[in-house]
């Protein structure tokens, strides 16, 4: 009776998936069996550029950026149980900050750009978080629809601003002319291959930081809020502050993904802050399992991969294909591919141990 799925009017069973995954979490895997696939994937990613053509390398770069984007959204959704329709706002805003600083601000140093973009995105999240959480209510017992609508509106608002402020953002055609980053290290110039490694490094560092967050005191408080916010308040936790802080943290990491994306494409368009981009990150998290930390990474690989293939054969039909995938996943594997893979891996371990 205590494990009731949270009520949700149109998200279906998506938000209740954590319960499914957690009951399957029983076999404690040793750190080696947990770490092994991660290390193998990391090594493969490091070796990859030496033996794949450059378009694959560029595809994997995009996958890594979107993996970070998805995991950053999951700080809110998977960890805290707070679904948002406006996460792309931070992604796009971070990218625009970076682009505007380069094109109009004349700041070419990558690290300065990155830090400024993170700070500005966090500031934006801090500003938007106040009104957004006024309508959020207390956890599962309240309907998240108002929060979803408010965050959706923020994203669309930023899209309008980006279209209107033409002198700064380039209007609806977007902000072009973002070159590969300059690291400020003498003798190091970034080309598409070294950019791949730069993205790899930054994404890995961010994922490790978020992983630490998941297992920290703060992270467990967020899990508690996910499961039972009223009890958390009764235990003495200022749950508003936790939700608000995690909104800022998620926004900041989303901003980092946006900065990398701006450098990756060399252009930012207003749509990067709006519903279209939120749809993609939503799909990444749903597909990959919100309840599994690494889930959105799997989701990013699948979504970006399918998008690439779709763009080769049926470029106009990508939204249709994306919609079909969402319906398919919700109906066939509502718990997401991440949970599926995790269970498979556990079976492999158990099989080898027996």
């Amino acid at each position, binding site marked *: *009776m205590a494990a009731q799925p949270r009520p949700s009017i149109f998200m279906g069973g998506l938000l209740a998936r954590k319960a499914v995954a957690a009951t399957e979490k029983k076999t404690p895997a040793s750190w080696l069996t947990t770490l092994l696939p991660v290390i193998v994937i990391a090594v493969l990613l490091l070796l990859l550029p030496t033996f794949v053509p450059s378009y694959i390398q560029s595809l994997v770069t995009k996958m890594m950026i979107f993996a970070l984007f998805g995991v950053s959204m999951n700080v809110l959704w998977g960890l805290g149980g707070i679904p948002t329709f406006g996460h792309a706002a931070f992604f796009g805003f971070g990218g625009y900050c970076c682009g505007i600083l380069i094109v109009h601000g004349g700041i070419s140093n990558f690290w300065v750009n990155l830090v400024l973009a993170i700070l500005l995105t966090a500031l934006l999240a801090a500003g938007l978080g106040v009104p957004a959480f006024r309508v959020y209510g207390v956890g599962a017992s309240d309907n998240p629809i108002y929060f979803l609508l408010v965050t959706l509106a923020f994203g669309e608002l930023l899209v309008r601003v980006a279209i209107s402020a033409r002198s700064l953002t380039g209007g609806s055609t977007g902000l072009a002319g973002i070159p590969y980053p300059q690291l400020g290290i003498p003798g190091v110039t970034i080309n598409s291959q070294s950019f791949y490694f730069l993205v790899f490094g930054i994404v890995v560092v961010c994922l490790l930081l978020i992983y630490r967050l998941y297992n920290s005191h703060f992270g467990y408080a967020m899990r*508690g809020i996910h*499961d039972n916010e009223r*009890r958390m308040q*009764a235990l003495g936790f200022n749950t508003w502050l936790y939700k608000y802080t995690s909104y800022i943290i998620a926004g900041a990491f989303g901003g980092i993904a946006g900065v990398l994306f701006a450098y990756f494409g060399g252009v930012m368009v207003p749509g990067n802050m709006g519903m279209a981009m939120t749809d993609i990150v939503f799909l990444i998290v749903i597909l990959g399992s919100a309840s599994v930390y690494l889930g959105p990474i799997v989701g990013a690989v699948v979504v970006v991969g399918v998008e690439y293939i779709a763009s080769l054969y049926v470029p106009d039909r990508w939204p249709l294909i994306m919609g079909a995938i969402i319906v398919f996943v919700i109906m066939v594997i509502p718990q997401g591919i991440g949970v599926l893979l995790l269970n498979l891996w556990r079976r492999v371990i158990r099989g080898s141990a027996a």
Partner: protein
Amino acid sequence: MAALLEVRGLSVHFGGLAAVKDVTFDIEQGERLAMIGPNGAGKTTLFNLLTGQLKPSGGTVKFKGKDITHAAVYARTQLGIARSFQITSLFPNETVRVNALIGLQGTRAGRYRVWGVFSKDKALRAEAQKLLESIELWDKRDETVSSLAYGEQRKLEMGLSLASDPELLLLDEPSCGLTPTESADITSRIRDLGSKITVLMIAHDMDLVFGVAERIILLHYGEISAEGTCDEIRANQTVKDIYMGSHKHKTRDA
């Protein structure tokens, strides 16, 4: 000395319905106070006013002389008020130990840390062991809470209420749904809490009420309609009429 909790003229209205009307009472330090009343009398609503889940329409609540009428739920817990819930309110997907750890963390320093590993916090783990041993759930520490038996979940519910080291403990039907044996166990636990913890509890179980309470408040239609010691309440005609049931009521029901 002023009372630990002073409630003055507390009211709350839901639209036209006055769920709690002009309630005034004190709880002294170390007291065991029970609140009884028929279903819908406003007992849990009054609890929610005292713990801050609901905002009152009028009146004041003072705890240790400090006005907390409009304080947030978590702020009251920090001051030393804790509650249990009538409907078991735990973290069903986590283990028993993690439940205890989260419960303890609420009022202890370091709860905003983003770097340390929570499940390896030594000080917290030691406290969690003590807490779980005191409610006899240490052997079940690695089990997921949703897989516990109901009686065990109720014990953990009480354990979590005690995790914040409260001075005032508000128990909402602590024996709700338990077997007579389990209920007797809870009764003796509440009795053994010690004089540092003041208890206000809602209960329908008369064995629990008379076994624990020193003073009883009867709530009826949101108002205090009787107040006194166990013996006084037993003898009180109003109590007999509206709570224990009388002929007048039976005929009206029929």
